[in-house]
């Protein structure tokens, strides 16, 4: 078994079996130019019976097992398991793969299909989510935080400073950048006492005249403007 995920093997196995899948997540970011590492392959797969069977047969030789689960569980990789479940985080002899029947912010395979492009990867052609949709998916998953909350809302009952976050806010997502309803941009910082957080205002980045534009700075295309 590899210590690392063999993206090439996964792509070839899925492609050769005729599996309908869309690359999302960190590998999609790499395809679009992101300069960061990722340790697994995330794909959204079609849930029709034919594709379930193809996916089952394709991964069978790689001995899929639930990632992080104790050894010895009665987990069987077959079409019934795939049909009864939806999203699977698996470890295999080729490394880690996440199979997503549905993805937050993107829906099902068919929903995501209009927001994909064909790319050549490891010598085969496969589908990858577009950059704008990838950013939207990251937002929906909370990886790139953006919020809509009132400027006077608070994070905890003991914290009454203006600019604090709402009780429903992801208060433990410290250091995330958020945008409030009023357009103010800030970074979530942990309170010195307690579990609460508060928003530290940042200067409006869109008003910076000295910032050289040229790329979107988030693994995007150099021509983003």
């Amino acid at each position, binding site marked *: 078994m590899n210590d690392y995920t063999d993206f090439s093997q996964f792509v070839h196995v899925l492609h050769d079996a005729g599996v309908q899948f869309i690359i999302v997540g960190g590998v999609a970011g790499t395809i*679009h*130019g992101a300069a960061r590492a990722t340790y697994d392959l995330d794909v959204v797969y079609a849930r029709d019976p034919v594709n379930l069977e193809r996916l089952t047969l394709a991964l069978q030789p790689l001995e899929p097992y639930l990632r992080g689960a104790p050894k010895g569980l009665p987990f069987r990789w077959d079409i019934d398991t795939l049909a009864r479940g939806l999203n699977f985080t698996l470890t295999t002899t080729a490394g880690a793969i996440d199979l997503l029947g549905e993805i937050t912010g993107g829906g099902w395979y068919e929903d995501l299909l209009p927001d994909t492009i064909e790319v050549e990867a490891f010598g085969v052609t496969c589908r990858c989510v577009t950059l704008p949709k990838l950013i939207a998916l990251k937002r929906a998953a909370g990886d790139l935080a*953006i919020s809509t909350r009132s400027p006077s809302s608070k994070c905890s009952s003991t914290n009454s400073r203006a600019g604090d976050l709402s009780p429903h806010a992801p208060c433990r997502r410290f250091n995330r950048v958020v945008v409030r309803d009023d357009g103010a941009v800030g970074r979530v910082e942990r309170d010195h006492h307690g579990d609460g957080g508060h928003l530290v205002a940042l200067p409006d980045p869109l008003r910076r005249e000295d910032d050289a534009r040229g790329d979107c700075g988030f693994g995007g295309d150099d021509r983003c403007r």
Partner: protein
Amino acid sequence: MPRRDAPTVALPPDPVIEVYKKDIDRTLLRETLKLTPGQRLAKLQEFMKAVSNLRGAARRPV
């Protein structure tokens, strides 16, 4: 082999992206964007192999 590159993307100005941008080494992005998607994936794969080797080295006694 024909070059199958990702299409040009125009993203509207976004305050969150602008804030994150200042903490990102964009020289790395520019270098990566010179590659095709396939070359980017191959580079990622090589990087993951290298990381794996380094992990092994850390576990081995000197």
